[in-house]
Structures are given as structure tokens and as C-alpha cells.
């Protein structure tokens, strides 16, 4: 304050206000658009109510199916994170501390190798995947597990760093627990925050993923949105808003989880 | 980063000052409804080294920060050389301050850090460099001028911080628990070095700490604080031998808390009459504070059984249990080697004691936790 380290309240609210308004405009425009009555001007609730009408299931079948695909994708991706990434991270933390750097590097690589590059090499891999698992959209989750690695890793690792995992498991072992008990009763309850955060972020990333789905010719929420947008931009706008809001709520919950932990 | 600290032998003549007088008169500081400083009065002589001592939350750091201007006070006066500086901003008060940790600017070398205050005073470059090097020499780090903070140990960082604070020849030097974040051994040698430098330069110094051994070791006078109030100011010896309040008696040094009776103005403990320190009180049951070194183990006297005995290098501390179940801690020379289970006899040496009124249901006697 007097030291000049913080902005005055006036400065703060001017900056936040101006930036906030500019950033709100596209969202407001999207919302306003969803109420527009065709190209003629005027407003209507039809686009919203149409979602619940009798024809809705038929008219928007493609879209609802795409949403279903994305839900399945989210679930499978989270499963991959929980079943493959999480145990590996715990194992490395407990038994292979020298590999921590390697693991960290691996989980950062997907940032340097973006989806648009990865997908060039995924096409041949997926021709084999299709032979084994069929061509359903859910197999995309294998690729998604990689794209969410940086986010999920960071979420779980910050939890692992905050909890004295090695000491706790040694203490539990010295008291007579086997490894299963250590994992289930001692470690996982303490890792709940990081695991949930990783799960939520993974869901958000999967719902917003477009590149890999599009270039591997699968249907998910985003590809369907783009397609619907060409014939019925109003519904596209509605679902875009809903998806953004849903992701926002998910991430708010992560923040609240972190807060609860530090209060307890 | 060696563990032995080089002793600086050069005095920096350009840094010597005459020492300012510092006075706090009726200083009050509130944080909302919590009164952190409750009308503090403190008079510091030129060149004096004063320690503010007390537990967490007693207000010692608040008082120091009020002196520095980093906290604004709600009432009272702060005088430096007779001038009230309560309204003067920190950067104009001409003080030097050493913080507990992490205060060196990380992107600057030690030399640049030390030069910073001189740069703020627009001292020309050559002059600046010479004086900064002199200050670094004074703290024994002349060869570390090009090192960055992350290349220095904790003790070395604090010495650079000290040089940085002193190079501008401030009127007052303020130290906010400068040793608390350091290893025990470094703490002891660095506090002696701080004291030596301070004496040579003659700068008025205020030193905040929660470690009573540290305060007693370095300061000319110590102010013991509790709940925003100064309980007692005095030389280390005065505080130790004649504590003015039971809090001071308890906080400074170790004490046994023993059940006793105040009768006729004298404290009666195990049949022995001792003088009372501090304010006179009504007769009645009291808890007396007896120092471990004021009890002797001898051939006859109060019977007791040894529970445990610890060898502390230059002395021994022995815990005994008396017939009524109370525990006492006794400090004595190393030649007497009591074993657990031995039957011994105790004699109170007769030093005056502090006492506080006791409710009858209080525990019989307990050894104070150091």
C-alpha cells in the first residue's frame, strides 16, 4: 500500500472492470444470439424450449448422441487417469524417487507435442486400434488420456508433495498394514483432493477437445457443435454456453475442494 | 559455504555513528478490536543494545515495526533524537533494518544489495562501491561480493543483510528475529558477531527475539513483553535475579513452581522462610518460583528420591520426587552424580523468590518446561 506493492482499490477496479466488460461481451453475445428469432430480428424462447419439445429427440438426435459420446469419453479418460496414471505416480513417489523427473518430463511432453501434431501420428496407430476395439468413438479416450496428462499430473503431484506419503506408508507398514491397506486406508483418503481435481480437469478437457476427434473422423460434442452450427446456429450457441458453464462449475468445485482441504 | 565463520578484523571507520536516542511514549496499536500495543513506554540511550523479548503475540515485532514505520500507530509518540517521527514514512526515517529471512534482493549480487541504500541516497558510483565493500569486509564477506543470495548460506545472507542495513550509517538499527531461521550453532556465533559490530560502531540497536537465552546473551537491557505490555526492563542480571512479575520469573530462565504459604510477608517453603520478590501480597497460599540452582543436594535436609539426572556438559540437572509427590529440578556441579533411585537430601539456598497467589486445588509442584 504505502510501500507501493499493491494497486489502489480504484486502479484495481478500473482494470478489472474494463477487462471484465470486454471479456463478458462475447459470452453475452452468445447468450443473446440464442434468443434471436431467425434473421429477422426480434426475440424468441423457441430455441431453448425446442430442446424439450416432442421433436427434440429426433431433430437433435445427432447432437444428443455426440453428447453421449463425449460423456463416455470423459468417463473412460478419467478411468485411465485413475487406473494407470495415479498408481504409477504413487509407485514412483514411494519406490522409484529417481524416476520422478522422468515421469514429470513425460507428463509435460504433451504440451510440446500438441494435438495437431500428435494426430498425424495417431492415424496409423488408430487403424490398429480399430481392428481390436472397433470404430466406436470411445476409443478416442486412449489419446485423450495422453492429452490430459499435464493437467492430471500437476493436480495429483501437488497433492503428493503436500502429504508426507513416504512417512505415512512407512508408519502404516511398521504398524502392521499390508500394501493394500496402506493404499486404501492411508494414502488414497489423503489424496482425495488431488485425485478429484485431476478427474474434474480431465472431464473439462475431454468435453472441449476438438482436434483429435475431428481429424480422426469421430463424433464428439465439439465436432457435432461445429456441424450443427452450420444448420442451426442457435442450438449450437445454446450448447456452447451450456458446455462452457458446466466446465466453469467443475473448475469452481476444484477450487472449493482445495479451499476445504486447507481449512481442515 | 563453510561452517566456520571468518572473524572480521577490520572496523569500518566510515560506519561509526554517535548513536541516537530512541523513545516510545504511550504507543498504542490496534488491529481492529485487538490491542497489540497497550501504551508502551521505552527510553533507549545512545548506542544502547536493547532486546525486546517475549512469546508470540506479545507485541515485540509490532513495536519494532512501529519504530520502523512499517506499521502506523494509533496513539503515542515515537521520538528519534527528540523528534517525533510517527508521521514520517519509512523511507525517510533513516533507520537500518534486518528481517528474519528472505530479504536480500534475489536478482542482485551481495555487493549490489549492499549498495542499494547508498544508491537511494544518490551516492556516486565509485564512493558507493568502496563503502559497500568496506561494509562487506566488516561482516567477513568481502570475497563474496559477486555472489547471489541463493549461493549463500542462511548465516551469510543475514550478514549481507546486516552490512546492507549498516552501510548507510542509520541512526537506529532494528533487527526482527534475525537469527530465528538459522541453525543453532550459526545462531550463537552470529549473535556474538552482531553484538561486536554494534559495540564498535556505537549504533543504537533494538533486537527482537523470542529466545530468552539469546536476549540475555547479547543485550545491554532487555524488555520482557506480554500481551502488548512491557512487564519489566532491566539488565539481563536484574531480570534473572529479581524478576518483577511471575511471568518474567517464569519466562526468563528455568523455574520450579512449588506450593508454598505467604506468611508475615515471607514465603514459607518446606519449612524455610524466603524473601519475596516483586510487589507485596496478602498472606495466604501461593505458588513460588524457585530456580534449579537455588536448591542444593546435601547430606541432610528435605528427603527426596532421584528420578533422572542429565549431564549437560558444564553442569548437571537432576529431577527428584519428594515425599508429597512433587517433582523438583535441581542444577548442580558435575561432580555429584545422582543415580535414579538414590535417596538424597535437599537444602534451599535461601535466595528470594517470586510468588503468585494459588488456588488450593492447584497441582502440588511442577517443573517448569524450558
Amino acid at each position: 500500500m504505502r510501500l507501493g506493492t499493491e494497486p489502489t482499490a480504484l486502479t484495481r477496479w478500473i482494470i478489472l472492470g474494463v477487462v471484465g466488460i470486454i471479456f463478458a461481451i462475447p459470452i453475452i453475445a452468445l447468450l443473446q444470439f440464442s434468443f434471436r428469432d431467425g434473421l429477422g430480428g426480434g426475440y424468441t424462447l423457441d430455441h431453448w424450449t425446442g430442446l424439450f419439445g416432442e421433436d427434440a429427440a429426433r431433430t437433435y438426435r445427432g447432437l444428443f448422441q455426440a453428447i453421449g459420446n463425449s460423456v463416455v469419453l470423459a468417463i473412460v479418460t478419467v478411468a485411465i487417469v485413475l487406473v494407470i496414471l495415479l498408481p504409477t505416480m504413487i509407485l514412483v513417489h514411494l519406490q522409484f524417487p529417481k524416476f520422478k523427473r522422468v515421469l514429470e518430463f513425460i507428463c509435460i511432453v504433451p504440451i510440446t507435442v500438441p494435438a495437431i501434431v500428435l494426430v498425424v501420428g495417431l492415424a496409423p496407430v488408430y487403424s490398429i486400434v480399430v481392428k481390436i476395439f472397433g470404430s466406436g468413438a470411445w476409443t478416442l479416450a486412449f489419446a485423450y488420456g495422453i492429452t490430459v496428462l499435464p493437467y492430471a499430473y500437476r493436480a495429483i503431484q501437488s497433492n503428493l508433495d503436500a502429504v508426507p506419503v513416504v512417512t505415512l506408508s512407512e508408519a502404516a507398514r511398521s504398524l502392521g498394514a499390508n500394501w493394500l491397506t496402506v493404499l486404501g486406508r492411508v494414502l488414497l483418503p489423503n489424496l482425495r483432493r488431488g485425485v478429484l481435481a485431476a478427474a474434474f480437469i480431465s472431464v473439462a478437457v475431454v468435453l472441449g477437445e476438438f482436434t483429435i476427434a475431428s481429424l480422426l473422423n469421430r463424433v464428439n460434442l465439439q465436432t457435432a457443435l461445429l456441424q450443427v452450427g452450420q444448420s442451426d446456429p442457435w442450438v449450437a450457441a445454446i450448447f456452447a454456453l451450456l458446455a462452457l458453464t458446466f466446465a466453469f462449475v467443475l473448475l469452481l468445485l476444484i477450487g472449493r475442494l482445495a479451499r476445504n482441504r486447507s481449512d481442515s | 559455504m563453510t561452517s566456520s565463520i571468518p572473524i572480521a578484523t577490520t572496523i569500518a571507520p566510515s560506519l561509526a555513528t554517535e548513536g541516537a536516542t530512541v523513545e516510545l511514549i504511550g504507543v498504542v496499536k490496534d488491529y481492529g478490536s485487538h490491542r497489540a500495543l497497550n501504551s508502551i513506554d521505552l527510553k533507549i540511550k545512545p548506542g544502547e543494545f536493547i532486546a525486546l523479548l517475549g512469546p508470540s503475540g506479545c507485541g515485540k515485532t509490532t513495536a519494532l515495526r512501529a519504530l520502523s514505520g512499517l506499521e502506523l500507530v494509533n496513539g503515542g509518540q515515537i521520538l528519534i533524537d527528540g523528534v517525533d517521527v510517527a508521521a514520517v514514512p519509512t523511507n525517510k526515517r533513516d533507520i537500518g533494518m534486518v528481517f528474519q529471512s528472505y530479504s536480500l534482493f534475489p536478482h542482485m549480487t551481495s555487493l549490489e544489495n549492499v549498495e542499494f541504500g547508498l544508491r537511494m541516497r544518490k551516492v556516486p558510483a565509485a564512493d558507493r562501491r568502496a563503502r559497500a565493500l568496506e561494509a562487506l569486509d566488516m561482516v567477513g564477506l568481502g570475497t563474496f561480493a559477486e555472489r547471489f543470495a541463493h549461493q549463500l548460506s542462511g548465516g551469510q545472507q543475514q550478514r549481507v543483510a546486516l552490512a546492507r542495513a549498516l552501510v548507510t550509517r542509520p541512526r537506529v538499527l532494528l533487527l526482527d528475529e534475525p537469527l530465528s531461521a538459522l541453525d543453532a550453532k550459526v545462531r550463537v556465533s552470529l549473535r556474538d558477531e552482531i553484538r561486536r559490530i554494534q559495540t564498535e560502531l556505537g549504533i543504537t540497536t533494538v533486537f527482537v527475539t523470542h529466545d530468552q537465552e539469546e536476549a540475555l546473551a547479547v543485550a545491554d537491557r532487555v524488555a520482557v513483553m506480554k500481551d502488548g505490555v512491557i512487564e519489566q526492563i532491566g539488565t539481563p542480571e536484574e531480570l534473572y535475579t529479581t524478576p518483577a512479575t511471575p511471568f518474567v520469573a517464569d519466562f526468563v530462565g528455568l523455574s520450579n513452581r512449588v506450593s508454598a504459604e505467604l506468611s508475615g510477608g515471607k514465603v514459607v517453603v518446606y519449612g524455610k522462610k524466603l524473601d519475596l520478590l516483586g510487589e507485596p501480597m496478602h498472606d495466604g497460599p501461593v505458588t513460588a518460583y524457585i530456580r534449579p540452582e537455588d536448591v542444593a543436594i546435601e547430606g541432610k535436609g528435605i528427603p527426596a528420591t532421584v528420578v533422572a539426572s542429565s549431564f549437560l556438559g558444564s553442569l548437571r540437572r537432576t529431577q527428584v520426587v519428594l515425599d508429597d509427590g512433587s517433582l523438583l529440578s535441581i542444577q548442580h556441579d558435575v561432580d555429584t552424580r545422582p543415580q535414579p533411585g538414590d535417596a538424597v537430601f535437599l537444602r534451599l539456598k535461601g535466595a528470594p523468590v517470586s510468588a503468585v497467589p494459588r488456588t488450593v486445588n492447584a497441582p502440588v509442584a511442577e517443573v517448569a518446561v524450558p
Partner: protein
Amino acid sequence: MTVANAPALTSTGAGASPRRQSRSGFAKYLGLTPFAAYVVLFLAIPTVLAVTTGFFTEDGAFTLDNVAGIFAPNVLATFGSSFWVSAVTAVVGAVIGALVCYALLGTRAEGALRTVIDSLSSVLAQFGGVMLAFAFIATIGNQGLITVFLKGIGIDIFANGYWLYQLPGLIPVYIYFQVPLMIITFMPALQGLKATWAEANATLGGTPFTYWTRIAIPVLAPSFIGSLLLLFANAFSSYATAAALISQGAQIVPLQIRSALVSETVLGRENMAGALALGMIVVMVIVMWGYSVLQSRTSRWQR
């Protein structure tokens, strides 16, 4: 107290009780194989494929033709456009984002304002792509909210062509997710400014001006530039937004890859995509290497 000294009761644990000393060297790595296999299959192999297909023709013969094709004028121009868009949006995003971070200094980390801005930034920075494209079409598209509003007061923003659906149209949309990414990335650095530095500055006679110019900004510089590099990399590798806005054409490298992959007219374009992917990776590796160097400098200072 180590695992080896644990009482005998524990040795009957569910089969796998790995004790560091007693396991044979090979078996204990078993636990790492699921992850290793997964990463090899879906990260290592695709990456290697992506990088190396550029060196082969569709018949499998080694060739440098595809890589040479990168230096064809039109492809180089595409790289140039990608650089230009990424650089502009990175700089603008970094500056605005840094301003917002500054504005948030002093607010409670757990307070409503910060948590909302954190979550909002996460959403807009990472997950927006297609949806943001829609939002901008609704704002400054042909019938967009702002377009219509400005037309009403006599300003036709599309007087010189419908730029929203071409290269320049990417810029406002990219900035829209660059600013939140900057907020996420840069805020920790700003939070890492220690209060003692400002206090030391004051006790040494400095002013708020000297604090910012001599201490805070120099300390923040590596982190700021690092974040800027991250923003550059982010824009450079973005695909979804461009794909949603620009349905035909290949003005930036990701779109060039798209046309190479989905092209029905020219055979063997997948290998061209490989060459482009190689080019992209080279750029990304250089930029991310710079970012990590600056990050380690920052963490060294803000221990």
C-alpha cells in the same frame, strides 16, 4: 525405522509386498509397465511417426522432398503467418494478463473474486476452441451483436472484407484465450514477490517507484518472458478455433496440416503432413526449452 524392519505380521500382504531390499532387480519394475506401455503406444509412437513420416514417400522410400516442401514459398508464408499471429496475440495477451494479475494483488487468495477469476481463466484458456469461435461470430460476425450495433452508428467493420473468417479474424479470438492463460501462468510469479523485499526497499530509503523499477520488474522479467513464450507456443499449436472459423484454406500451419490430412485430391499428402508436423515440433521444442530455462531461473530466485 524402515520397511525391512517391519514386524513379521506384514509379510503376508496381498501378494505384492515390495520391500526395497529383497526384490529381484527386474520384477520390481513390473509396476511401471502399464504406464510405460500406454505412453509408448499413444505418445511415443505417434510422436515418432508424426516426426518421421515426413521423411518417407507413401511407398515407404526415404526422401527429403517433403521436408524440402516446407521451404516452398507458400508453406513458408504459412509458417510466417503462424509466427505473426502467435507473436501478436502472445504480446497483447501477456500485457493485458499481467495487468489483470497486478490488479489482483492484495486480494484474498481464497476469496470469491480470485476463485471465480481462476476458474473462469481455466475454462477460457484451455477448453474454448470451437465454442469461442461461436461466441465471436455472435459478437462480431455478420449479424453479430457489436457489428449490428456499430452499423447502427454508421461504422461498418466489414467494409474491407469479412476478415473474421480469415487470418486477421484469429487475432481477437486468440487474445481471448491468451489473456486467461497469462493470468493462470503469471499469477504465481506475482504472488511470489516477497513482502520483505518491499519493506527492505522502504527501510533503505526507496520509494514505490524504485521498488517496481529496481526490484519487482527485474525479478519478474524471466517469468514474464517465460509466460510470453508459453503463450506463443499455445497460439502456434492451436487448431480448433482456426478450424471453426476458417472452413477452407490453410493460412496457418495447423490448417495446412488439416488440408494435408483430409485432402482427397492429392495423394501422399499425409507425408506432407508429417513434414509440417516436424516443422511444428522443432518450433515448439525451441520455444518450450526457452520457457523451461526461464522457469528454473525464476524458481531459483523465489526459493
